[in-house]
């Protein structure tokens, strides 16, 4: 993790999920794979994929979706996908990416269809912008916490730890210790930003979010009589589908499992990418739309503060629908190992996971959308490994921090402001 160069306070911004997809030119797939491997070998974030310069980026990845045939026998050509989690605004990111990431884009998207032959920054930007896709559901660990803020707060915590290590006779009173820490922070010009609370996203954006929430509540209330009428019919149809749809327990190819294992432990957290087909038929197409809307709405308005129903290890996650709702790709950035991630899924958010993933071909059988499914541990783990694909290039702006670290650092920072009781000061000091 590179310490931030900018001592100014991070501006307030909300987070966006960027997706750009382009079909790979016929015959260029091997060259594209080689280009991605070269970027990966050179450590993303450095010159070949210069994200450390793009301080709005939290995470970014490039991955190839192989050519494939969908369950109806229709071919899907190979494509390249760029996904990033950034701080708004979008236009700034695309401009900077097109400008500073030019070489990386030319080496990768240059092998895709329609790439400008003699690209300049503006041509690249237009290319990316024209191929952007909307992400249907996104989860952000803490909405409004920017990448620069995260890096600055990590630096702050390390500085305070160093101060405490060196301090000889600290007073016994926690309030007095806190005062000493505040004094230390004020004495450091490079930490000047830390004496104020982190900025929130701009007011108009926050007002819009509140209005959206209001609209959702009002809308659902108005629709509730209709929902009550439709629900029994829906439940019946659902059960019929669940009983009928095949869900064989297939084991993953051991070589695939080993290859995935060998790519883990790149940092404090890891990228997860899994792709699958939506089960055929109109029922599942409707269900997956409803579920993704619900998931998105829940993470937008409910799970906004570092806790996804007991899981505190996910930085970002998203569902992106591809190929006219025939396929869905799920990506996330999670702490620890794939094994612990899957255990978290099963132990803590099985219902949400069942609701979304059970619309995919081959998912372990669910009951009433939410139950069973992923609770069949081994079958679920095997399913997930079979659906997991390699993330060829991946960048994290804070690769030594777990999500709990990020949250703790933010609380260390916010605790520098205002006055505190003895108890509060004690609790705050326990964060160090």
């Amino acid at each position, binding site marked *: 993790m590179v310490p931030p160069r900018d001592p100014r306070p991070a501006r307030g911004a909300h987070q966006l999920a960027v997706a750009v997809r382009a079909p790979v030119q016929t015959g260029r797939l091997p060259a594209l794979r080689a280009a991605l491997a070269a970027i990966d070998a050179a450590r993303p974030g450095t010159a070949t994929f210069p994200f450390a310069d793009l301080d709005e980026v939290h995470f970014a990845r490039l991955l190839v979706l192989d050519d494939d045939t969908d369950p109806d026998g229709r071919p899907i050509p190979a494509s390249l996908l760029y996904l990033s989690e950034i701080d708004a605004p979008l236009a700034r990111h695309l401009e900077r990416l097109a400008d500073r990431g030019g070489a990386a884009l030319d080496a990768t998207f240059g092998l895709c269809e329609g790439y400008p032959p003699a690209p300049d920054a503006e041509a690249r930007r237009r290319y990316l912008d024209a191929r952007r896709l909307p992400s249907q559901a996104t989860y952000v660990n803490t909405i409004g916490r920017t990448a620069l803020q995260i890096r600055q707060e990590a630096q702050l915590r390390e500085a305070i730890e160093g101060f405490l290590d060196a301090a000889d006779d600290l007073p016994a009173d926690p309030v007095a*210790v806190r005062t000493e820490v505040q004094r230390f922070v004020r004495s450091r010009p490079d930490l000047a930003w830390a004496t104020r609370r982190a900025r929130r996203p701009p007011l108009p954006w926050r007002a819009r979010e509140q209005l959206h929430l209001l609209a959702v509540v009002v809308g659902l209330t108005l629709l509730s009589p209709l929902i009550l009428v439709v629900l029994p019919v829906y439940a019946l149809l659902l059960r019929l589908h669940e009983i009928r749809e095949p869900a064989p327990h297939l084991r993953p190819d051991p070589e695939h499992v080993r290859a995935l294992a060998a790519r883990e432990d790149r940092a404090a957290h890891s990228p997860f990418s899994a792709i699958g087909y939506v089960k055929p038929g109109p029922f599942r197409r409707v269900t997956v739309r409803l579920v993704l809307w619900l998931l998105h709405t829940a993470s937008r308005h409910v799970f906004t503060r570092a806790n996804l129903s007991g*899981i505190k290890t996910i930085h970002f996650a998203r569902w992106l629908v591809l190929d006219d709702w025939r396929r869905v790709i799920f990506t996330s950035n999670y702490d620890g190992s794939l094994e612990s991630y899957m255990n978290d899924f099963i132990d*803590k958010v099985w219902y949400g996971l069942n609701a979304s993933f059970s619309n995919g071909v081959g998912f372990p059988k669910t009951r009433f959308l939410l139950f069973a499914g992923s609770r069949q*541990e081994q079958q679920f783990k095997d399913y997930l490994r079979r659906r997991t694909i390699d993330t060829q290039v991946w960048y994290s702006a804070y690769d030594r921090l777990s999500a709990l670290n990020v949250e703790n650092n933010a609380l260390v920072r916010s605790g520098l402001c205002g006055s505190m009781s003895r108890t509060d000061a004690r609790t705050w000091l326990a964060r160090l």
Partner: protein
Amino acid sequence: MTLELADIQGLVVRGYGKLAAARYLVAELTDAQLAKRWLERVAGQVDSAQGRPEARAVNLAFTPSGLAKLGLGAGALSSFAEEFVSGMAAPFRHAPLGDVEESAPERWEWGAPGDPVDLLVLLFARDEDELRAAEADLLGPDAGVRVVRALDTSPLEDREHFGFRDGVAQPWIEELGPAPFPDSIKAGEFVLGYPNEYGLLTDVPAGELGRNGSYLVFRQLSQDVQGFWAFCEEATLRPDGAVDEAARTRLAAKLVGRWPSGAPLALAPDGDRPELATANDFGYHAEDAAGLRCPVGSHVRRSNPRDSLDPDPGSRRSIAVNKRHRLLRRGRTYGPLLARDELLSAGAPGEWRDEDRGLHFICLVGNIARQFEFVQRTWINSPRFAGLYDAPDPLMGPEPPGGRTFTVPALPVRERYTGLPRFVTVRGGAYFFLPGIRALRYLASLAD
């Protein structure tokens, strides 16, 4: 579901505490035909969970190469857990298990990549003479088995080499009867084919061959006892440079999470209380969420966090998650044990370093990935366990890029120790399968 005790090997239900002597023979099958005849002969002598041996006991476990040499087909082999098939020393497992640098498998004394390890013979006897006799009876020259390494153990004691009581928080298999403490664990967490903590039957590989078997994880862990106590001593010297014995023991206890007697810090925060030596019925959340008594990063708290982790610390839900990551530990120490007063008194004898001593760590699990590897990786080795920074397990975790730290929560502010050396080095290891006794007979009957 009743356990088929007559078919399950004895090690699953007992550590053979009455048999004070033990030796583990890491062996190669040099002649498959002879080995099968040998296996046919000795299968009847392998101790089952029904026996209560007074003089000697034998248990047998195999690696994939051992099963293959006996004639188990590739299809059947590949139905075993992937971790077992690719093995503990597989390259992509080094970093997650912490088997790097001094502990890298290339340096192992046995179990290194390419080493011929097919079979593990676990021998227990009431004394050394009986043990020698048992070994001679079991492995004649016509066994088709060559001992690659004989791993001796210290006479059985209830403490490990650093000087702390060990093996207190042992999971209790629910099906064996009423537990001596509230939380017992379903048999499927340790024996294949039984209901586990998800309420599912644990996968049985290779048809009936896997039933009543367990995966056995073996790690030879060498302990730097002198390094451990020297670190604790230096870190707690008085300002005038004098040794502070009480502070030294206290820091050691903070690293471990129990006092030397075994008393848990969570119950005995202020000093050792030998009457709590075997206390096991406690949680961390209610009294000690912040770790002021038992540091969050201490060895016992992170290898068995009890009720302290997400989704809802202090609740049944968190305990339920914890129960899916338990290990049935069956290891014994090796190398000469140092007297406890010698360890705890001032001044470190110079000859400590000359001898290798440590733990032959053995654990039995139904799911290597979710139990042993998860605990090793996500709890022991992770420098970010439960929100910590740069703090892998203080006894055995590998060094993270930011250096190793250990934090003792305290008032008004924590004590932080940086630059901890690694006190435990891995010297060998392998994943084995401990089959049921019928399965042993079946293996002996396989065609060449």
